């Protein structure tokens, strides 16, 4: 077991351009079943061994795909998300960075009530070690095991996963939820999935400045989680009013500071590593016995 994706996942790629093709190849080499591509101008072609369709519905009908990874550029990305939902997919992971926030607010409102789970946008994707890679993560640093990893970041997720793997602590699923102000899957959604997943025994959560998703997550952990959670919050010394790379990573109106997030998490019983170098060790210290399993 794992969350979101496993060996049985049948993945299609929306936006099979240069980047989409590159990562489709890496995902396939990792063992993921990449069954279809969707590109409005390449329908009927076979790219790199992958049959390409004009629409997601055609691709699903022909291949039985149940999940999608979206590389469509920002102007068409929200539309691509809605097309995935309309075609009845179970999961869409949107990698695209730079989608207007109003497009996402509208798409998210339209997805309410849809059975499709959206991960991202502006995220590195999802890896279930040894089984399935959706997105752009370097899957070779992961190893199968009992720890769920959820993060708003890309490369900082790799850093955390690397720390865990070096300590011999494997992961059930590694999930980047994205650095935008409005994302499909929130920390709370991810924590709930990990809580319900029998393979996951503990969770590492990596937040950052901006918004209040970490505070909401702290509340959820306190009220609903029986599994241990440890955290790190990036941007502890970030200046207010400056966007730190991610569209969502900004302290505005006195809100979204790292100190408030750390305080909320600690009050909920979540140990928070102050140093980004100690994320793995913080977990190992608070939850012994996770290594080499």
């Amino acid at each position, binding site marked *: 077991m794992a969350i979101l994706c496993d060996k049985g996942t049948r993945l299609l790629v929306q936006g099979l351009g240069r980047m989409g093709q590159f990562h489709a190849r890496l995902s396939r080499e990792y063992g993921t079943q990449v069954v279809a591509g969707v590109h409005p101008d390449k329908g009927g072609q076979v790219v790199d061994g992958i049959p390409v369709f004009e629409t997601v519905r055609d691709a699903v009908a022909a291949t039985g795909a149940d999940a999608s990874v979206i590389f469509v550029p920002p102007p068409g990305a929200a539309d691509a998300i809605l097309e995935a939902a309309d075609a009845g997919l179970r999961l869409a992971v949107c990698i695209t960075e*730079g989608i207007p*926030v109003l497009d996402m607010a509208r798409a998210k409102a339209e997805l309410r009530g849809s059975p499709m789970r959206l991960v991202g946008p502006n995220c590195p994707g999802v890896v279930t070690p040894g089984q399935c890679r959706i997105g752009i993560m370097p899957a070779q640093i992961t190893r199968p095991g009992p720890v769920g990893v959820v993060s708003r970041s890309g490369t900082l997720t790799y850093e955390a996963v690397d720390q865990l793997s070096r300590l011999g602590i494997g992961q059930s699923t590694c999930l980047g939820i994205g650095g935008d102000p409005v994302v499909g899957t929130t920390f709370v959604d991810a924590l709930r999935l990990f809580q319900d997943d029998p393979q996951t025994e503990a969770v590492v959560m990596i937040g950052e400045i901006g918004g209040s998703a970490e505070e909401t997550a702290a509340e959820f952990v306190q009220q609903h989680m029986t599994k241990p959670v440890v955290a790190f919050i990036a941007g502890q010394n970030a200046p207010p009013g400056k966007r730190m790379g991610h569209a969502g990573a900004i302290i505005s109106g*006195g809100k979204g500071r790292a100190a408030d997030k750390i305080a909320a998490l600690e009050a909920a019983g979540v140990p928070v590593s102050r140093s980004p170098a100690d994320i793995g060790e913080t977990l190992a210290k608070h939850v012994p016995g996770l290594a080499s399993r």
Partner: protein
Amino acid sequence: MNVHEYQAKALFRSFGVAVPEGRLATTPAEAEQAARALAAPVVVVKAQVHAGGRGKAGGVKLAKSPAEAKQLASEILGMTLVSHQTGPEGKLVRRVYVEAGCEIARELYLAILLDRAAEKLAVIASTEGGMDIEEVAARTPEKLLTVHVDPNAGLHSFQVRRVAAALGLAGESARRLDAFLGGLYRLFVETDASLVEINPLVVTKAGELLALDGKLNFDDNALYRHADVRELRDPDEEDPRERAAKEIDLAYVGLDGDIGCMVNGAGLAMATLDMIQVCGGRPANFLDAGGGADQEKVKEAFKLILRDEKVRAILVNIFGGIVRCDLIAEGVVAAAQELGVRVPLVVRLQGTHAAEGRSILAGSGLDITPAETLREAGERAVAAARGAGA
């Protein structure tokens, strides 16, 4: 992206949001002409900079005659305005906005923004206009009304009525709010604004509603579809290094420490700043070279870091996923040689092709301190900056 008050008000006007009559001036003579043309008993001369707190900083003054407007404009133009939002270095005033004064009966507050937690737009209204709204929210939250609007449904009439009631507007004033707030909402969604704030929104003695001040921010991600908004950008208001970074598609934020940083990925870049602080040092900048960093990007990033004269050491921290560490290493070597980097260089390469990258650095003959882990990278960069400072 931010714009000036005068630009915000021109947009307000075009969406039917009432504002006082006003004109822009870049010289005292123009300010005098503007005051004369407005033909109001009192005009207000307002410094145009991208920062709040202008009144307290001496950037907003009342004039009772065109001659006085000229005199005040000559004092305000060219001044370095320092407010709690400008930082200690302040901002040079290049333009003033001359606006007709009005007889104020009440001062209110009105804003529209995206509520991230609710994932909807939010109209925020308060009777406490002219105050610091964060303080109002902290001290008297009951005086703040938040109305969530589903962007797919738009602003409903009953929502406008709720705002009117909360603001104590009735009769003709309530009907005026309908046009005012409706226009503001259309402005927000049609230009992809990220914040529109009117503080104060005044009710005049004649019962009119007027936006006396206006703050307007836009979603950077949506600028590609708003050429007219892009034209409002004022490069003079931006930090020169941040502006240069934007032009080469790097995310850069200047800080006040002495360790220059180059990192791939925003989260890891923030964490690298945290690491430096944990090790007792102070970062000079945030720099995310992005997922597609190549040799050319690395060189541009180095140039940018070295423009900051405070920099005493540079820390490069790359976790290669998509980015290949060997290519980054070649970029670092080329940049160090071409640019003649004189400050100590600490480089940590991890992930894809890291071993190849490290051997490129080791074989370059350059004095580059390698680091294996994030902690080592932080410690060595801090030590290098101290050594260089001694």
